[in-house]
């Protein structure tokens, strides 16, 4: 076990320590989920503009075939997760209880589902523009949950240069073990992916930040590291929200990204481990982003698992494969329990950013009785941004949104640490989200 003594571990200030609940799936190898009959690919499953369909109803598509092209620069491609036939392009269920325009594909039961071979791309001989275009074509997004198109991070404006590649293996969300399993099972692919990105960005070094609750991942990475590689593994304290980009930069490089600026302004690019492996897979095997690893867990799931699931698989099929739901399930969440999106229907498909599917059963955490704020200050000591969530929540309840800007409400990353810490069970981060969306609207604050 390669575990540093406490004084050498790195971290950031504030934050919270929720129970991990990772032991149920941490040691379970990922299994490949079999193909099912129907897939749904929402066109807006990444941040930015929705993708534009390239297929029509009735078209036959091959697994890995481009089915939608980027709708703008901040947008990305979609590829078919399966060989089959397009049966519909229309509104389908999406996380958060809403609908989104999607391409529905019916699986061809007689197809082999083998990926078409593709002439390899020599990643050592690409211009920056070609590299960016390749990543965008492959449909690769931030796999940690935000699903921000990765090629945007690699298009560095004139006059800036990336020196450091920070690889995010913190996985600070409770329950989730998908990044953990990826680092344990495919450390070689992760390191090769880092090599590809380092080469194409011209960065000096890469650091992989891994929380200390994943000692086997740290060991696997270090055993595959060659001394000649400019790559190091940084063990981190276990703390939420360590996986938040700016917190991780603070923990590893002890630098604060100034408010309103991006990591690249400090010469740093941050990628989730899943993103890096997706890049390795694209350049080495020609596989675009058509599947991902996710953790199915939570007290309401019969058989918690780590699965490789084709994108677009309905949640219902994933849960059935894991033995179904227990009877007292009350809420389903896509992503982690701290920042994930609740889903209203089992018809919602797995998306590029779906790091987990969690099922929760009835407990005191649901519809808790709210007490008045007693100004205990726990939210202040939880907020990694050093905001005053108590103040913000009070202002939000009074709808004094303009005044909230004086308290830097727009700096909030909605990690939910304040709400986790609040003994009065005030939905602080939900109030802040409402305020932020009000402030973003034109003519905000007129009331």
């Amino acid at each position, binding site marked *: 076990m390669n575990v540093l003594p406490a004084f050498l571990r790195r971290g950031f200030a504030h934050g919270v320590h929720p129970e991990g609940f990772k032991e149920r799936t941490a040691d379970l190898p990922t299994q490949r989920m079999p193909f099912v009959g129907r897939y749904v690919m929402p066109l807006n499953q990444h941040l930015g503009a929705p993708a534009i369909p390239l297929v029509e109803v009735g078209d036959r598509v091959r697994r890995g075939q481009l089915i939608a092209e980027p709708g703008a620069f901040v947008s990305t491609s979609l590829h078919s997760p399966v060989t089959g036939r397009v049966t519909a392009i229309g509104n389908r269920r999406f996380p958060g209880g809403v609908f989104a325009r999607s391409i529905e594909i019916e699986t061809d039961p007689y197809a082999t589902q083998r990926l078409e071979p593709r002439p390899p791309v020599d990643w050592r001989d690409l211009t920056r523009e070609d590299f960016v275009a390749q990543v965008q074509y492959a449909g690769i997004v931030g796999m940690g949950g935000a699903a921000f198109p990765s090629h945007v991070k690699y298009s560095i404006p004139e006059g800036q240069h990336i020196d450091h590649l920070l690889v995010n293996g913190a996985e600070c969300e409770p329950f989730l073990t998908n990044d953990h399993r990826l680092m344990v099972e495919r450390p070689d692919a992760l390191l090769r992916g880092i090599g590809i990105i380092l080469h194409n960005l011209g960065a000096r070094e890469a650091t992989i930040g891994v929380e200390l609750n994943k000692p086997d991942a740290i060991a696997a990475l270090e055993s595959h590291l060659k001394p000649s590689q400019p790559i190091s593994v940084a063990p981190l304290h276990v703390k939420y929200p360590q996986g938040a980009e700016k917190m991780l930069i603070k923990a590893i490089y002890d630098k604060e990204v100034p408010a309103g600026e991006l990591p690249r302004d400090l010469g740093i690019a941050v990628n989730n481990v899943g993103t890096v492996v997706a890049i390795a897979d694209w350049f080495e095997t020609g596989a675009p982003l058509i599947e991902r690893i996710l953790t199915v867990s939570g007290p309401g799931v019969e058989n918690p698992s780590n699965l490789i699931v084709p994108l677009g698989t309905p949640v219902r099929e994933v849960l059935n494969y894991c033995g179904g739901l227990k009877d007292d*399930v009350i809420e389903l969440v896509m992503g982690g329990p701290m920042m994930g999106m609740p889903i209203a229907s089992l018809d919602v498909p797995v998306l590029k950013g779906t790091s987990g599917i969690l099922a929760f059963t009835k407990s005191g955490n649901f519809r808790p009785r709210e007490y008045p704020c007693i100004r205990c200050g726990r939210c202040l000591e939880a907020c990694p941004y050093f905001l005053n969530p108590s103040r913000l929540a009070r202002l939000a309840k009074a709808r004094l949104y303009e005044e909230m800007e004086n308290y830097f409400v727009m700096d909030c990353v909605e990690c939910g640490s304040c709400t986790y810490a609040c003994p009065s069970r005030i939905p602080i981060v939900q109030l802040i989200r409402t305020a932020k969306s009000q402030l973003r609207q034109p003519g905000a604050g007129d009331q």
Partner: protein
Amino acid sequence: MSTEDPRLLLQAAPLLKQQLTTRSAMLDVLLALLPATLAGLWFFGLSGLLVLSASILGSIMTEWFFTPEETRRQRLLDGSGFLTGLLLGLTLPSSLPLWMAFVGGAVGIGLGKLIWGGLGQNLFNPSLVGRAFLQATFPNAMTTWTPAGGPGDFFQVHASNLALPFMHVDYDGVSSATPLGLMKFEYQDTSLSNLLIGNISGCIGETSGLLLLLGGVYMLWRRVIDWRIPASILLSVALFSSVLYAFGPDRYPGPLFSILAGSLLIGAFYMATDPVSSPITPRGAWIFGVGIGLLVVLIRIFGGFPEGVMFAILLMNAATPLIDRYTQPRVFGRGGAGR
């Protein structure tokens, strides 16, 4: 295997919450006060019990009366009204007429909490508002002390306890000065062991330094109070009184006496730490505590009263919004201090 859609909630994340709730924090404070309360009953007997009951009753009945019916149950169950009454009662002399204790509890909740908008909205500590009201209205009754008794006269009830409202009060004639009074007016010391055990005259719940500390340590361990506030109060009182003591050991009390005598411990651990009326920022907590410590020493030494904890805390309560405003933490990624 379940393929049917369950009835799903859409409660927004985070779905995990830490264990502590506001209600459990209140219960922890009550539990922490239990040893000192029992000691108070031991020393002051049935009279003490009656005074405590009267002030608690005053608080709870006022809360009940002025709360809309829908929220009444929750308001009473959150325990804060009971706590206000108990804290007030613990800082009253055991010979106080019961009706005064009742009025004190009612004023504490009414003027100290409800007119501000209820729990979480008040500027001042409600139990101290009640006490300040009593001190201003009935100065004589509030400063007539009986010595701590033993098991022998446990069932004795002071005649003054049963005085009718606004009628003349007859005292049993066994009044005795508190350690602070003795020190201030007669330069007479009280042994530290008596201050620790509580076998002295004073308010019902403030005499036993040891048990108050025990409860304080429990609350710190349970993390229901901000450690910075008692730490800064006790340290600053020790520091300021040491300075005075160095100049005149015969006239001024030493630091240990200053900390253990009077209501400093109950004030520092149980009243100043009231989160509602103390600063929310960590830096603000230090300023708040040092301010209280300074005011306590100033009032005790140079003021007209032997004790100054109540006024010190109330004055710093008043300064809390200002302190909060100027001690906002520096926001991550922003140079200057917030706001």
